């Protein structure tokens, strides 16, 4: 049953081939059995899940079931869930139980999903390997000595290991696409403003965006349909109609213009990854797409600009964690300053502290123009590169990451080495563009992903290309050897 896709589960539930309670119990048992190995979940909510499943079964029996009624999923532990701990992978929020649900959680619940629990992640979504989680790293189901990517590593691993057919995730600089690539699943970061950020713990507010992960583009389309749309509680959410993502999936690709940026195939790209991505391009060409060589000349400035903007915004967002209203408080503070300084030193891990300090530095008196303002100008140049490219092409394709999953500790000594793993994903966040990753091959037995970057609000066309690719190939159906066995 766990090997079914999300769409197949919907179908089976609607036809009463199995109940949501049966499905939920089966997946909860798999989660419990494998969590000591993968560590994909921070919190499993058996009781809550079974209650939701029973309610879903009643609706299915009554015949008034919404689209995703009874399908089990998991939420990244960055989305607030009423009554169930939301830790954000941090000691700071180890005891935090939100008094409300995030909009994403609320909308998926309204669409009928059953939430099995909260998935592991890099602390405050700051990381590309899941090694910064207070709850220990997630293991990559394809190779247990390797990272699952980050920050949404728990969601990616849970989908790859067939613990859930889909999961929510967030992406500030690649945190949906990079773990999706490294775990061999499909993940989509929507256009900035497409999905509400309300109730999603903020990291860098001008970059953060929520999106779905699943095994196929079709499943991603189903989840995005439920998640997307205007929310007046998020001031940057955009009021635009949500198209029917599934309706466009099967369109032929004849005449589709796909841009291939030279900058994404340069030095540093693993030859095996490059070969897999080029084969994906050839498959799309066989289906009628036309490949166009393009340039994105400011690509090499994306990572440096990001490491000003994201830490600067993080330093402001994370100032709310003060040990007064919620979250960790140090023992026996001798005065208010001691309370702030020790609560934050104890509550935040090393990477989060580093980013807050860098952001504080970049925003401090005398440095604002040299750093933050300069980075925002570079961001405008990067956006212009994409606008120029989209005048010639419909989609842009390239690798999601330069390499397949790396071993734990491999990037330990140097933060910059870790940051450069996001070299192809960060630009889409800076420009606010939608981007997805889907599996397109195996290198040394580990999955690699192809990234599709679309124009603003063009998620339907991206999912269409991904779906057509997946109809002709089976990379997205491959399971990690241990899971398949």
């Amino acid at each position, binding site marked *: 049953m766990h090997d079914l896709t999300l769409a197949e589960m919907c179908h089976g539930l609607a036809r009463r081939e199995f109940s949501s309670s049966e499905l939920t119990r089966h997946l909860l048992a798999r989660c419990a059995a494998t969590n000591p190995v993968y560590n994909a979940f921070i919190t499993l909510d058996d009781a809550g899940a079974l209650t939701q499943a029973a309610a879903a079964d009643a609706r299915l029996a009554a015949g008034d079931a919404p689209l995703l009624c009874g399908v089990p999923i998991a939420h990244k532990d960055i989305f607030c869930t009423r009554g169930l701990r939301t830790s954000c992978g941090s000691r700071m929020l180890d005891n935090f139980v939100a008094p409300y649900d995030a909009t994403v959680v609320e909308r998926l619940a309204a669409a009928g999903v059953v939430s099995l629990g909260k998935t592991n992640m890099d602390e405050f979504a700051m990381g590309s390997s899941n090694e910064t989680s207070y709850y220990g790293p997630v293991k990559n189901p394809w190779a247990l000595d390797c990272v699952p990517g980050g920050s949404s590593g728990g969601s990616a691993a849970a989908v790859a290991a067939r613990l859930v057919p889909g999961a929510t995730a967030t992406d500030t600089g690649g945190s949906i696409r990079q773990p999706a690539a490294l775990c061999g699943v499909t993940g989509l970061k929507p*256009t900035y403003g497409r999905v509400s950020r309300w109730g999603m713990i903020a990291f860098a507010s001008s970059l953060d965006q929520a999106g779905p992960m699943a095994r196929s583009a079709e499943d991603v389309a189903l989840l995005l349909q439920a998640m997307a749309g205007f929310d007046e509680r998020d001031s940057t959410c955009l009021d635009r109609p949500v198209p029917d993502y599934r309706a466009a999936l099967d369109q032929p690709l004849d005449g589709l213009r796909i841009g291939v940026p030279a900058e994404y195939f340069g030095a540093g790209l693993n030859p095996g990854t490059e070969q897999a991505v080029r084969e994906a391009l050839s498959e799309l060409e066989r289906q009628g797409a036309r490949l166009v060589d393009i340039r994105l000349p400011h690509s090499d400035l994306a990572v440096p600009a990001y490491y000003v903007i994201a830490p600067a915004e993080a330093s402001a967002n994370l100032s709310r964690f003060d040990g007064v209203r919620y979250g960790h408080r140090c023992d026996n503070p001798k005065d208010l300053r001691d309370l702030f300084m020790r609560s934050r030193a104890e509550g935040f891990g090393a990477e989060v502290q580093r980013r807050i300090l860098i952001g504080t530095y970049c925003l401090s008196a005398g440095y604002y123009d040299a750093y933050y303002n300069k980075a925002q100008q570079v961001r405008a140049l990067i956006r212009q590169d994409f606008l120029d490219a989209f005048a010639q092409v419909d989609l842009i394709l390239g690798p999601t990451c330069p390499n397949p999953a790396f071993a734990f500790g491999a990037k330990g000594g140097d933060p910059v080495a870790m940051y450069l793993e996001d070299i192809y994903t960060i630009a889409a966040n800076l420009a606010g563009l939608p981007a997805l990753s889907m599996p397109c091959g195996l290198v040394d037995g580990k999955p690699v992903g192809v990234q599709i970057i679309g124009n603003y609000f063009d998620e339907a066309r991206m999912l269409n290309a991904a779906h057509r690719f997946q109809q002709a190939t089976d990379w997205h159906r491959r399971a990690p050897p241990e899971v398949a066995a």
Partner: protein
Amino acid sequence: MAIQRADIEKLSFLARIDITEDTLAATADGINRVLGLIDQLRAADTAGIAPLAHPLDATQRLREDAVSETVDREALQAIAPAVEAGLYLVPKVIE
């Protein structure tokens, strides 16, 4: 320009994060590596380029100045480390 001990001490206070003596050197080293990365921005020609604040140039929406929801103070304070009589407790500020 590399970050020095005095800079870290100042940042530690501005960010309200206590940095102990034994982690100070490692903290400075990590920050300096990242600042080395960031310094690549200096080479970019950005003369006359307007900084980008929102990728779609959206502006803040306005709404009626009316109560839209009420806050359940008890529920919010139930997750606080220390409260009394509806107030958050912190160490004494004025001697």
